[in-house]
């Protein structure tokens, strides 16, 4: 039996379960902390992220009291770069996930509600998209665009990431379509659009939220990788990925340049994964055995 879509009290129960889960709270705290840090941090920094302080003497300075994370090969303060790079990395990831979620939900809803050959065709496209290694597809596209502006990067990331969400939404829609409460609404004369928005969408929102949360982790690492090899965020704009890339050549002599942004990535991904798990558990609590 599939229950009718969530109402206010249902969400209340979910939030309560989430609040009771220490792991989720920790994850939310870490994420919020990171977001605050990257928004506020650069404003408090003594050095600008682009500023080459003293390239003859301060290049590759070890971490010290004045430069908590040392400097890079151009004598730029690494901590400033990491913080301002964090803005870019987080913003890009979250925006791209928004785009891919919107596209995925729309595609999945349309396919699931349409049914028949339209559904099959739309799902074949999604399957094809899933089969292509996302990195390689982005490599192919970005190879053609010399200095990709950040907005285009976000759009491309979003356009290549909706396939999984579309499949998820479609399968949920299919399972709900034949549920009693949907049939009841249809027999009362609800239009397809109303069905989609009011009855089906709330039911789907839980799994989609989980998927979107986890997607932030994937995308932020993906963008970092692309920036690492030079086709993502372009210098002098910093992103965690291209800072790591800058430090690669000198990994042995100045490891702090590459290690620091990587740790930030790990923290974000950990937090996002833990939050995703916590959301999943909060949405579907375990059940007791039959007596």
């Amino acid at each position, binding site marked *: 039996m599939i229950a009718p879509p969530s109402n206010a009290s249902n969400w209340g129960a979910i939030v309560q379960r989430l609040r009771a889960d220490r792991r989720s709270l920790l994850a939310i705290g870490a994420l919020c902390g990171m977001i605050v840090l990257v928004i506020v941090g650069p404003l408090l920094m003594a050095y600008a992220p682009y500023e080459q302080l003293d390239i003859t003497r301060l290049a590759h300075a070890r971490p010290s009291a004045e430069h908590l994370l040392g400097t890079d090969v151009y004598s730029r303060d690494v901590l400033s770069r990491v913080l301002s790079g964090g803005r870019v990395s987080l913003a890009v990831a979250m925006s791209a996930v928004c785009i891919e979620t919107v596209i995925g939900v729309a595609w999945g809803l349309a396919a699931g509600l349409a049914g028949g050959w339209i559904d099959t065709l739309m799902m074949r496209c999604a399957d094809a998209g899933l089969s292509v290694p996302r990195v390689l597809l982005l490599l192919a596209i970005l190879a053609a665009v010399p200095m990709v502006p950040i907005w285009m990067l976000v759009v491309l990331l979003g356009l290549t990431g909706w396939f999984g969400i579309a499949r998820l939404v479609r399968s949920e829609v299919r399972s709900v379509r034949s549920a009693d409460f949907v049939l009841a609404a249809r027999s009362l004369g609800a239009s397809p659009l109303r069905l989609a928005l009011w009855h089906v969408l709330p039911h789907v929102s839980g799994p989609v939220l989980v998927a979107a949360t986890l997607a932030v982790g994937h995308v932020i690492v993906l963008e970092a990788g692309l920036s690492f090899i030079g086709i993502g965020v372009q210098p002098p704009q910093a992103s965690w990925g291209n800072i790591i890339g800058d430090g690669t050549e000198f990994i042995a002599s100045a490891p702090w340049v590459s290690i620091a942004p990587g740790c930030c990535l790990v923290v974000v991904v950990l937090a996002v994964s833990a939050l995703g798990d916590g959301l999943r558990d909060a949405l579907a609590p375990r059940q007791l*055995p*039959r*007596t």
Partner: protein
Amino acid sequence: MTAFSALPHDLLLSLRDVRVTFRTADGLITPVDGVSFDIARGETLALVGESGCGKSLTALTILRLIDAPGRIEPGSRILFEGRDIMTLGDRDLRAIRGRQAAMIFQEPMTALNPVYCAGEQIAEVVRTHTGASRVEAWSQAVAMLGAVGIPSPEIRAKQYPHQLSGGMRQRVMIAMALVMNPSLLIADEPTTALDVTIQAQLLDLLRDAQQARGASMLLITHDLGVVAESAQRVAVMYAGQIVEEAPVTALFAAPQHPYTEGLMAAMPRAGTRRERLTTIPGTVPPPGAWPSACRFADRCVFAWDRCTGEAPPLHQLGDGRTSRCHLVEEPERRFAAHTAGAVT
């Protein structure tokens, strides 16, 4: 109730004061609370009750199949073929399971492993308990499938549960239970998930198989019709306790406990003209919320103040009958009741 240390030799199974507890988020609950009954050799005892009364859990205790967070309390005694199952070590217990006592579960689609074919699952029992080779075990499995009435057993044995109909799956379960010739069959609502016509066939099958082997059966059900068909004695359970026990004909002729009366009145019967189905008012209380005195009092049409103050013991009525009700001591109260919705 007398505790006894030796089992008369014609008693196959004897439960004494079996108690099962579960640790939940809301505390400790006791869904099986002091259950005792006996089953003689060759006899079928039906254990009847609504969902949530603890009858399935009781069945699981016999082979100690209760897992955490559940626990069979140490005071429980389960005597089978003269040995107390509670004291058996792992190896001895496993030797009994599937061989001397076997279980048949309610929903064969989930009770059968979906990745092994039917024959393999039966052969597994044989191989576990005997040194038979794969080939011998397989042929025994196929033979057993034929014995439970499955046509073309050699073909069916290679099929997977999802390829079989519900009735056939349950026959596979029965075959699995019978293959080692157990002396006790524990059937937990074996036909509840099936059509009525198949139900009749399978009950006949079980009865024939049981009689042919001289085996005993504990039949768990909520359906009094099944009880009438298949059992010699009945125990009625409510809220974790046995509230009445009697031979089948005696129970149907003259139920003693108000709950049993209610169950029987609620049975739709062909041939009677009645506008409305009678129901027992109220619902079964969940294990955490059992009243301290008589657990049926708040739904009972005969209840008076003694019922909410003092828990009735299980009275022995002679001729193998018992009843957990104060009416045994004060039968005149039975005629004093004039509550709306009284049982007619």
